[in-house]
C-alpha cells in the first residue's frame, strides 16, 4: 500500500481516487499508518483505508480467502460510471507494480475520451499510436502495429 500512497499525486493528477480495503479494523489501519507507513511515505497514507473485518466486500469482489480469513491482493479499476474496467488478483507474496496500473488508467482514459472509437494495442504507452477499429483496419493492423513495437 505504501507504493500506492507514494504515487498518490500521480494518480490524483489522472483524476483517480484511491480506496484500500483489508480485514484489519480502522483502528489498526491508524496504527499501521502512524507507526510504519508514515516512515515510508511523507505525510502518511492520503486515502481512505477501509475496514472489512467480516470479509463482505472481499466476497463480493471475489478476493476473500475463506481458509485464511484474509483478502487476497486484488486491484480493481472502476470508471466514472461505476463499471469495473480492469482487475488483477494475486496471492499475497508477490506485490503489485503500480506503473502498470497507471498505464492501464491512461489507456482506459484514451478509450473513454474517444467514446470507444479508439483502442490501445498491446504494450501501448502514452504518446504511442492508437488503433481505430473499423472495416479499414481488418487485416491491416500489421501496417500500424507489430509486436516488435512493444517496449
Amino acid at each position, binding site marked *: *500500500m505504501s507504493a500506492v500512497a507514494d504515487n498518490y499525486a500521480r494518480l490524483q493528477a489522472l483524476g483517480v481516487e484511491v480506496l484500500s480495503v483489508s480485514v484489519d479494523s480502522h483502528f489498526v489501519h491508524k496504527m499501521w499508518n502512524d507507526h510504519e507507513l508514515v516512515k515510508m511515505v511523507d505525510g502518511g497514507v492520503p486515502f481512505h483505508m477501509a475496514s472489512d473485518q467480516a470479509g463482505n466486500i472481499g466476497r463480493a469482489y471475489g478476493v476473500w480467502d475463506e481458509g485464511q480469513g484474509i483478502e487476497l491482493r486484488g486491484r480493481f479499476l472502476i470508471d466514472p460510471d461505476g463499471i469495473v474496467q480492469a482487475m488483477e488478483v494475486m496471492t499475497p507474496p508477490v506485490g503489485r507494480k503500480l506503473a502498470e496500473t497507471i498505464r492501464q488508467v491512461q489507456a482506459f482514459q484514451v478509450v473513454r475520451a474517444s467514446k470507444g472509437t479508439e483502442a490501445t494495442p498491446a504494450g501501448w504507452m502514452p504518446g504511442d499510436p492508437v488503433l481505430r477499429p473499423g472495416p479499414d483496419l481488418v487485416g491491416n493492423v500489421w501496417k500500424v502495429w507489430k509486436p516488435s513495437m512493444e517496449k
Partner: protein
Amino acid sequence: MSEPVGCGRVSGAVSGEGPPPAPGPDTERKKEVLVTARVGQKAPEFAAPSYYRGGFTPVKLADFAGKWVLLCFYPGDFTFV
C-alpha cells in the same frame, strides 16, 4: 463526517443487504454472498468504516461516483509486501 468510536467488531458490508438471519434449527443458513465483480459490469456497491487522514470516516464507493477509482485489497496491515 466521523462516526462514534466503539469497541464492537466493525466491518464493511455490501450495501442494500439486510442483516444476516438469526441462526436456528429452522433457519436456512444464508447463502454465501455471490461474487458480483466482473469486468464490464457495475462494481458492487459497499460501505465501510475507514481511517482517513487522522480520523475515522465511513466511506462508500458511491462517494466517488463520477470519478475513476482504484480499489485495492491487500492481505493485512503490517504485512511485508
